């Protein structure tokens, strides 16, 4: 991922042998033996078929669930739980309907003890970057889905955590808005210094945005392979039409769906 200078790569989040079993009527093993090292400032995507446990894995990273076995270790917070230390953005924007867009974005800061006026000023400065300028006082119900998702993202970002977990953040949007937001995120990420773990079912999204892609198997989800995305940064959205992009996309499709009947991969026909 060369930038020319000598980067000391620090591991910021390490998963060792993480497994999770839910005790339903019969035990449901969702993920198994996940070993993954995420480096500081890296953009990692998790892709996999439905039900492979990617959201569960993210919930574990967020500190909302305990793994049944294995450990998650964070370099910055070695002894404590990760809950409240890692920023998490779920698929639904979950904006509070009784607060304006501005007041929604500052809620993380309020929890942290910041006073309202300082928080508001800080958030307001970022509104233009997030394409929300002029909509500060609107209720979430009166703005579009894309704007709500961006507001939710700003809310996540304002908590100033070094690691961001994004759970299919653009999944609920239509294709055009999604492409728009992917390009926007790609651009934004260049200026952020955070580590991002993205869960998505969209292969192109993963290829466009990530440094590395972890492909997961079906349930119980294991990491099948980890693909390093070869393109340098800064990237532009135009890369999606490059031939290398399509080639890598084919590789990923095969990797994801090769073992399944009726699959979109080339190998099973």
């Amino acid at each position, binding site marked *: 991922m060369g930038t020319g200078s000598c980067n000391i790569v620090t591991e910021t989040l390490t998963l060792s042998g993480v497994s999770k079993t839910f005790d339903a009527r019969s035990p449901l093993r969702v993920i198994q033996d996940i070993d993954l090292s995420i480096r500081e400032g890296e953009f990692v995507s998790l892709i996999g078929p439905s039900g492979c446990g990617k959201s569960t894995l993210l919930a574990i990273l967020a500190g909302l669930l305990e793994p049944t076995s294995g450990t998650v270790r964070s370099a910055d917070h070695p002894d404590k739980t990760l809950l409240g230390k890692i920023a998490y953005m779920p698929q639904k924007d979950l904006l509070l309907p009784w607060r304006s867009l501005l007041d929604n974005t500052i809620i993380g800061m309020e929890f942290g003890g910041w006073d309202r006026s300082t928080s508001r000023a800080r958030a307001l400065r970022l509104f233009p970057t997030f394409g929300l300028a002029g909509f500060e006082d609107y209720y979430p119900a009166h703005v579009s*889905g894309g704007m709500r998702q961006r507001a939710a993202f700003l809310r996540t970002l304002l908590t100033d955590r070094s690691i961001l977990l994004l759970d299919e953040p653009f999944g609920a949007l239509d294709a055009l808005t999604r492409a728009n937001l992917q390009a926007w995120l790609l651009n934004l990420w260049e200026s952020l210094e955070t580590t991002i773990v993205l869960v998505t079912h969209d292969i192109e999204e993963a290829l466009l945005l990530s440094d590395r892609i972890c492909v997961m198997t079906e349930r119980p989800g294991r990491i099948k392979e980890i693909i390093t995305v070869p393109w340098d940064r800064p990237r532009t959205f135009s890369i999606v039409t490059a031939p290398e992009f399509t080639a890598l996309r084919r590789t990923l499709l095969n990797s994801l769906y090769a073992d399944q009947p009726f699959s979109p991969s080339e190998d099973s026909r």
Partner: protein
Amino acid sequence: MKPRTRLFDFSIIWLSLIGLTLIALWEGLVFAFDIPQWKLPAPSDIGVELLHSKNLLIFHTWVTLQEIIIGFSVALSTGVFLAILISYYRAVGRLVYPIVIASQTIPIIVIAPLLLIWVGYGLTPKIIVVTLVAFFPIVVNTVDGLRSVDLEMINLMRTLGATRWQIFTKIQIPSSLPFLFSGMKVGATLSVIGAVIGEWVGSNAGLGYLTRMSVPLFLTSRSFAAVLILSVLGVGIFLLASLLERALLPWHHRNNKMNLDSKD
């Protein structure tokens, strides 16, 4: 479908027309069958009574209104307090909530005369009756409202670093407000009934007392007049609560009417 944005629209005209028609029909029937006033007063008789006994009616209305207002205020404050207690302290809730529910199973018509023995006459027993009938819908609705928050929302707030108290005050309480207002609207109209029951059981003032005392005196039109005022009070309180809801929860009302996203 074009969203209706006003509280009063054309249906008020229809309602008035239907109302006026019924009143005219009533007047006509009384006239046609020559029904005596002590049996069934005509609307005109009720109107006359309202004018003649104006001062009397105002006096009794004020008594009942006091019972309603004070009783409902106590119901609202204790109801909300109990709901918060039940929801935040789970162990306490498991003890208190069943007691609250059990209190409702004892018919108020039995409790009211007992209150006279325990508390005496005057406004106090009626206020207690009003409180007893009005606080239950407030508690139940508010508890449901506080519990109505999705787990994913709570989890999200936890990842944002919220403490349990912060989640309770900044998420659960605002979420519960629409529910609280529903409970308030029901409680407010029940307050009117509570006041009347309290007065029926032992009173020498108030609209409920008036309706009861006018019957053996064959002053039926006075009785009807009092009932009319009671209805107006009930509707008025309900409207007041609705307007308050509109004012305090602008996001809630609009939320149900406007829909800008095709995917929602």
